């Protein structure tokens, strides 16, 4: 006799749930998986209605499932979010070009707008050309540092409020272990946060923080989602490999271990007398940084000068001084000066104001003048001073409402 689902006691169980070991049916699996994501989003207050949310999409399993689940939950629970797909093209032939095709298909399948930003366009260097210069070792440093910034740049181009990434519970647990093993205290404190400030303007979060990797794969498989699965053609991160293998063993010994590690990580607290780096902004590109120059600028400088090892491992300590002294020096490299973040932020702000103005115009039709002077718009209503006056009497109530929503 076929086994019954342990949750609904009705349908036939077809799978053993990796997180809990329960034998459950298809529908119940979808339901519990989605509900746990919903609980994560609600309990942590990740979004507010009207947020423009970008989904970091690589075309891999995590981000494909994330896009699907975000869309599903947004409709089911009326989050009121504007969703976008945001992809980074690192320029790795035979890997990213194929996975981006998947993202493009996802765009059609889910009906979400897509923006692709590429390393080539942002920095003048693709990963392929970086690997040519750096070699196979350490190139993951470049990729990781550049991707983080590239996502923020893309988000500003779309004027997003929030980026969600497909980091899952396995990733988080692995990072906790890794930071414990190598004594990275600032990161140990940070890595369990579900929302990180990003560049200080755009929030970043991990709705899959408590979702097991195995369940994400299971979900994608059972929903027949279209995703791309190949390892990156460049070398994987060796140290993370240790932590990963250990975590898989732990999961085998006790399936709840992944959740337990995250629970532990959340409870740990760095002693108040330990000095943690303070956050400032990069002098060159305006990105968030704990040093005078951000890591991306240092790495880029190294590439341009033909000393790609600058800023990696031991030379990292001297890199700041080195660059401070001769920051003006530039060689004839591939030289694309990355756009300053202030400029991007300014543009995003302008886009926001334009949008707000449109909304205002739709709300009440008294101010159709396109020459509205935003310069004098100090209370951010999106109106020029003259129409503000007239509005104040005409439709004070509706105005107050929209203002509250906008702020």
């Amino acid at each position, binding site marked *: 006799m076929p086994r019954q689902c342990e949750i609904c006691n009705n349908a036939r169980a077809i799978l053993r749930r990796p997180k809990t070991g*329960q034998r459950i049916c298809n529908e119940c699996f979808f339901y519990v998986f989605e509900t*746990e994501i919903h609980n994560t989003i609600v309990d942590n207050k990740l979004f507010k209605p009207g947020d423009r949310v970008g989904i970091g999409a690589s075309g891999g399993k995590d981000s494909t499932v994330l896009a699907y689940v975000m869309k599903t939950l947004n409709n089911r629970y009326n989050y009121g979010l504007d969703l976008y797909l945001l992809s980074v093209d690192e320029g790795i032939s035979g890997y990213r070009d194929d996975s981006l095709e998947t993202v493009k298909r996802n765009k059609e399948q889910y009906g979400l707008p897509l923006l692709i930003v590429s390393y080539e366009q942002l920095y003048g260097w693709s990963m392929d050309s970086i690997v040519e210069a750096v070699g196979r070792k350490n190139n993951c440093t470049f990729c990781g540092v550049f991707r983080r910034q590239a996502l923020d740049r893309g988000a500003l181009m779309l004027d997003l409020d929030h980026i969600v990434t497909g980091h899952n519970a396995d990733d988080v647990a692995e990072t906790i272990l890794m930071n414990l093993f190598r004594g990275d205290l600032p990161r140990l404190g940070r890595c369990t946060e579900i929302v990180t400030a990003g560049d200080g303007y755009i929030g970043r979060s991990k709705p899959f923080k408590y979702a097991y990797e195995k369940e994400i794969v299971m979900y994608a498989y059972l929903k027949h989602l279209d995703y791309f699965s190949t390892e990156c053609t460049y070398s994987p991160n060796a140290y993370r490999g240790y932590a990963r293998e250990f975590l898989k063993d732990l999961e085998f010994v006790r399936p709840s271990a992944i959740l337990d590690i995250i629970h532990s990580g959340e409870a740990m607290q760095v002693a108040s007398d330990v000095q943690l780096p303070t956050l400032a902004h990069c002098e060159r590109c305006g990105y968030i940084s704990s040093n005078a120059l951000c890591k991306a600028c240092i790495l880029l400088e190294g590439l341009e000068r033909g000393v790609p090892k600058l800023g990696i491992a031991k030379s990292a300590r001297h890199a700041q001084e080195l660059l401070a002294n001769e920051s003006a020096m530039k060689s004839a490299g591939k030289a694309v000066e990355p756009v300053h973040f202030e400029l991007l932020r300014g543009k995003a702000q302008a886009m926001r104001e334009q949008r707000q103005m449109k909304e205002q115009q739709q709300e009440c039709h008294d101010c159709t003048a396109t020459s509205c002077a935003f310069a004098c718009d100090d209370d951010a209503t999106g109106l020029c001073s003259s129409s503000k006056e007239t509005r104040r009497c005409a439709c004070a109530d509706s105005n107050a409402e929209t203002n509250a929503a906008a702020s």
Partner: protein
Amino acid sequence: MCDKTTEASLETQRVSPKATVEPSQYERKRVPGMCIKCKVIKPNVTIRRSLYCKACFVRTCVVKFRTALSRSRKNTTVPRTKLMVALSGGPSSSAMLNLMADFQRMELRGTEAQSRYEDIIAGHVDESVLFPDVQDSLISEIAISLSIECRITKLEDVFATNDEAPLFIKLVQSTLAPGALKDKICAHLVKTNDSISSKKRLQSLFSSLASATDREEMLDIIKTLLLIRLARKAECGVLLMGDSGTRIATKIVSLASRGRGFSLPFEVGAESSWFDNVVVYRPMRDFIMKEIAFFNMWTKQNSVVVPTFTTGAPKRASIGRLTESFVIGLDHDFSSTVSTICRTMQKLEPRKQALNSLPCLTCGMPVENDAQAWRSRLTVSKPLAVEAEPTIQSNGSNDVPSDEDGLVRADITDVVCYSCQNILTSAASGTTFPGATVDHFLKSKGPGDAKVDIVNAKQEALRKQIETFLLNDNE
């Protein structure tokens, strides 16, 4: 054995080479191919890439231990008291006893002619009920050979009724659909009687635990509990635990993997005042296993092999076993892993809530608020039809369903820590657990902040329940 004569001879050996190299005494320079300390004797051992000769190595160990012990003492103001050294008989605790005996001798020899500690007592937990192969006579010999009194408590004593443990926890399977995750842990608080011997009770406890990981965790809990009780009984205000650096690193990782992040600073910290009346120090934390092995060999210190549930088992046998093999492997590939993990730990501190929270009924460590609610939000196990809101109920009077046999069930979910919940939910129904803090649980505490008061109110309600139903468990 490391007695005074060997000690003296070690010191003369140390002094003579030093005198000859007086000028370079303070230089940190290494003489290639020579001991890093005296720089004239050919080295016998490499520790963390430094070479030491026999004499300098032993001397370094002695100094390191003294520093560790006085460093621990600086932070707390413990009045002069007796000190208990936890002795399992393994290499680390045997070395610690040796070093402590030496410390005491040095203190007495000093100008003050009064040691910081009134007396040194060794405390041993006899595990022969679970591991009959260990010869306990060998362990008390270790203490006797250092002329230290050894007090022994048996593992099964945890089931002996006394003031600190008036009642035990008897697990009741809550009625939920089979396979569904429990969102409550229910138990009877029972009195033991003599019809079942403590020995049998202990054996049946370990056989009804679900996995080797649970058994290891339970054994650790009981051992700590018994040592604390032993120290209190012997009026020792200080308890030394012999966790080596390697062991602490392993413990940190395995405790974290079992969800014990909240209590981690208390369980592996250099010193912990979590337990009433007993301060716990871990002065061996700066020694790696290799140092201890060489120290024992060169001071002819005896030790025994202390078996565990997974001795000789494959690495995936339990979380403890897996972590041990992983940490040692990682330390082999990245040489400073052990010390890095330990140092990371030192920079973590307990959360403020942890200092004020209730001790776990089972393990005695602090309990987080709403651990079970956190879990049930992330492991939804209610069907689509039922609204998946968490239904953790308070300990109201409605919450005390009466069982068929007339016993009253108590919801202990809020007084069991996250990690012990893992053990309890997977243990067989009807298992009797020794309570670490049933006395705490029963006693109403003094006034605290509002949160504590709420919990205390709950406790009070529970206490009333059991007052009227002082139970016997020989049904």
